[in-house]
């Protein structure tokens, strides 16, 4: 299907509203995306026609719900090109997925082992590893990537025979940088480390192929790729998932329970204790199918064009500090020296423009950049060039209004 931004936009009911007497300009897509009608319909239809608990009752609705739920797993498997559907574990999202791995791998770590992350991580891919290091006596090390994100030969020394776990984001949520995943994963694997890739900021924009990436774990959230909140996935290779000790236990994840012992269920159920988020899984599958139907390259080009348009206008205006790379990103992170973030944000909000201001859950990265926080305009496939311009114009007005003294 050829890509037509306005046609696509019309599939997102929320976007047609007025905010503070202006047309809504939603540029906070890296925080969460809006949902197309097909996702809303899938969730609505599920409750209208199929709702029952899954894997339990032997009755019509339970079978129907279970079928839809397991089909959803296949859609998501296909979406990231995972070899088996049992390699997809439903979670609440990226954060839960990472915690599941951080707790599940605790038993392989001993004093002196190393966990390696990068300097561009979201707190979700930092704090769980730091706490795991505290619990086990392992050492958390940080690969000092720069905003440009390029690989440097001296980074190789961070991968040692003590590196047991390597976790890195694919794309930085705060500044949009792509990390040099290929080079990093290669070094981590040479050292026999478990590898985890945080795909939270990638899935909405880039086709993902976990076989090609060849990481042990890949994690993402549904709500950042046009799906519902409260659902996400942990993909893992067979042996990697088998190593994980279930960090939650209870119903669904067992085969046989006695007071003396419990026999755990097979994958994926072994890691899915309790009644799952059934509507979420179905909604996430609908979001994956929505993306599958699009010309993904055209969408990506469009999003990058919008970000680059804003980058160019901000650069040209002067007096703006930009932290994002110029090309190949779908967001622009910046600040205006001497004008407070919340002043700029407050003005933009009055114009119906929603962007994010703050530290973007990346305190150490902000410190590295020497700022308390930044403003971030992040784009999705439904954004328009008019919106990008409206944002730039409003920002320049705000700078004029706030920039005296």
């Amino acid at each position, binding site marked *: 299907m050829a890509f037509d931004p306005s046609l696509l936009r019309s599939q997102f009911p929320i976007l047609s509203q007025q905010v*503070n007497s202006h047309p809504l300009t939603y540029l906070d897509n890296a925080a969460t995306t809006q949902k197309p009608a097909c996702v809303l319909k899938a969730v609505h239809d599920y409750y209208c026609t199929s709702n029952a608990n899954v894997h339990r009752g032997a009755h019509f609705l339970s079978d129907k719900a279970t079928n839809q739920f397991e089909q959803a797993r296949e859609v998501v498997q296909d979406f990231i090109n995972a070899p088996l559907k049992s390699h997809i574990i439903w979670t609440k999202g990226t954060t839960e997925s990472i915690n599941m791995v951080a707790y599940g791998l605790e038993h392989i770590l001993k004093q002196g082992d190393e966990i390696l992350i990068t300097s561009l991580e979201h707190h979700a891919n930092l704090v769980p590893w730091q706490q795991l290091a505290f619990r086990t006596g392992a050492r958390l090390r940080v690969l000092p990537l720069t905003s440009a994100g390029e690989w440097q030969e001296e980074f190789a020394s961070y991968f040692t025979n003590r590196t047991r776990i390597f976790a890195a984001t694919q794309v930085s949520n705060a500044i949009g940088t792509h990390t040099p995943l290929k080079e990093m994963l290669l070094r981590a694997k040479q050292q026999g480390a478990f590898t985890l890739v945080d795909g939270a900021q990638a899935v909405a924009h880039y086709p993902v192929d976990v076989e090609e990436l060849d990481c042990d774990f890949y994690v993402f959230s549904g709500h950042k790729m046009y799906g519902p909140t409260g659902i996400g996935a942990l993909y893992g290779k067979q042996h990697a998932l088998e190593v994980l000790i279930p960090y939650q236990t209870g119903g669904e994840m067992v085969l046989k329970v006695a007071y003396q012992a419990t026999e755990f269920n097979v994958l994926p159920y072994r890691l899915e204790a309790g009644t799952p988020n059934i509507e979420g899984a179905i909604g996430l599958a609908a979001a994956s199918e929505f993306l599958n139907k699009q010309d993904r390259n055209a969408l990506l080009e469009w999003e990058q064009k919008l970000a680059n348009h804003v980058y160019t206008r901000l650069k040209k205006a002067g007096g703006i500090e930009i932290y994002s790379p110029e090309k190949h990103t779908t967001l622009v992170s910046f600040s205006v020296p001497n004008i*407070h*973030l*919340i*002043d700029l944000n407050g*003005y933009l909000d*009055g114009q119906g423009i929603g962007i994010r201001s*703050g530290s973007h859950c990346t305190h150490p990265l902000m410190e590295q950049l020497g700022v308390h926080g930044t403003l971030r305009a992040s784009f999705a496939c439904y954004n328009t060039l008019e919106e990008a311009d409206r944002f730039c114009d409003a920002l320049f007005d705000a700078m004029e*209004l*706030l920039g005296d003294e």
Partner: protein
Amino acid sequence: MSEYLDIKKQLQACRSKEETFKSLVMLSKQLPRLSDDEKVEENKVKGCESAVWLISEEINDSRHFKADSDAKLMRGVLFAILSIVEGKSVADIQSMDIQAELTDLNLSSYLTSSRSNGVLAILEKIIAS
């Protein structure tokens, strides 16, 4: 008091979020800045996205406030808040519904907790002073 009525008139005349924002920026210019000696940790209001300092003292049974922020928007909001409580007795301040006053001033959107701008924390510090 007449100052408060002026502010009230000005803010109530605002027809949009944009106008309120501009008014707050204008009002921010009237808030005297604190000296560096006064902008110390113990005077800081915790829970604000911007830095906010608040100092008060009691003279003849009435409380007097000084405040500052590194954000203009917050200086405007502080100016409005202080115009409500400045010079009042502790008992008066505690019996006032400051949030209702602020809502009356068209500032209710600055009271929502999602903004995490710390207006609620500022009010708490004023009441506790």
